[in-house]
């Protein structure tokens, strides 16, 4: 698999001269399988420039939504393949007790919030409600599991050829824990992260900021380091940067990472590409 970051920002798109290197687009990661499978993790504003690169040769693709907070779906209406009659687009996202995923997405993709209704999209749209389960997206095996974040939220583990990429962009595993991290089986998302070759994980806050945002569904950098160590991952990519953090502040935050960690920490910057093979 090859992964490319198209949007690394959390909560709110934050373009500007202060965020040029880490990027201002909200969550979106493109994953290409070895067989050409096109899989997209979340549909934040980063999906708009990604869509512009997908030509007519891409007939079928999969969009995996972790949850339906606006910063993870806002780019959907600007994703070009949705407006192609010959495209088959699968959207996978968390199941709800009350309403199908299609109905919940239609709340955003309909007037007055958006001029085009979901039902009017010319592509063949296949919407899948996902619980904690394994499914196949082209040549990539996907494990989905609910993780700690307000509202039904999935994390994903993508596997191909014995290698795994774990994606938990909005995750607060420390919520309510008397000690953190707890043992693996009692740590949210552990099964998805366990032994992953690449972990893309929420690092929205500094430790001090986290204390002011307990229960908001996100992690401090040191908490992400702790779960990455617990899960024995190979590489950790920091992600879902706070919209108020400038490049300079993020450099400073990453400068606090201890050098002797048993895994590599890579600052999540828009445009970064990772091989998982």
């Amino acid at each position, binding site marked *: 698999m090859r992964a490319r970051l198209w949007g690394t920002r959390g909560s709110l798109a934050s373009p500007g001269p202060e965020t040029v290197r880490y990027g201002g687009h909200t969550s979106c990661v493109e994953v290409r399988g070895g067989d050409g499978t096109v899989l997209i993790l979340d549909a934040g504003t980063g999906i708009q420039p990604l869509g512009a690169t997908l030509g007519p040769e891409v007939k079928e693709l999969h969009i995996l939504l972790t949850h339906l907070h606006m910063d993870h779906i806002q780019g959907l209406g600007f994703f070009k393949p949705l407006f192609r009659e010959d495209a088959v687009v699968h959207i996978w996202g*968390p*199941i709800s*007790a009350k309403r199908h995923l299609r109905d919940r997405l239609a709340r955003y993709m309909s007037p007055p919030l958006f001029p085009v209704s979901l039902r009017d999209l010319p592509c063949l749209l296949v919407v899948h409600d996902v*619980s*904690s389960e394994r499914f196949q997206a082209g040549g990539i095996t996907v494990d989905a*599991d*609910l*993780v*700690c974040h307000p509202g*039904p939220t999935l994390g994903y583990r993508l596997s191909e050829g014995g290698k795994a990429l774990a994606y938990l962009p909005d995750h607060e595993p420390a*919520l*309510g*824990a*008397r000690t953190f991290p707890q043992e*693996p*089986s*009692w*740590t*949210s998302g*552990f*099964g998805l992260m366990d032994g992953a070759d690449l972990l893309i994980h929420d690092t929205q806050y500094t430790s001090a900021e986290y204390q002011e945002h307990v229960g908001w569904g996100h992690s401090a950098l040191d908490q992400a380091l702790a779960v990455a160590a617990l899960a024995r991952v190979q590489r950790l990519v920091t992600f879902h940067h706070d919209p108020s953090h400038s490049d300079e502040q993020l450099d400073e935050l990453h400068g606090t990472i201890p050098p002797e960690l048993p895994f590599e920490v890579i600052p999540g910057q828009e445009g970064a590409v990772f091989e998982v093979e």
Partner: protein
Amino acid sequence: MGEPIEVILLRQWSSYLGLPVFIMGESGALIFYNEAAESLLGRRFEESGPIDLDELSGLFVTTAEDGSPISSAELPIGVALLSRIPAHRRLRIQALDGVSRLIDVTAFPITGHGGRHLGAVAMFWEVQGT
């Protein structure tokens, strides 16, 4: 895979409560109990870890309020696990400390996201003045 997030959050929640709480897994094993429940079991969770069903039944003598025998299926936790409905009952228990206590027990099934049956929770109130 680890415990489901629904069960993890129940553990975090119960760890802040002052009343005894048991969290049973789908198989009926006691997968977590909080600090307030330690006096009922006579040991700390950090020491015991999960307790399977067979061992658990040996830690208590449980009867109906009047002292008559009661089957495990009739206990609130049994009803919540087997019938998947909430249950409440006054019981008499004698735990490891040998003290006989009259308690109220409320149990409810853990129905997770997507309707998954994940186990049950039991909460205990000691009846005062008995």
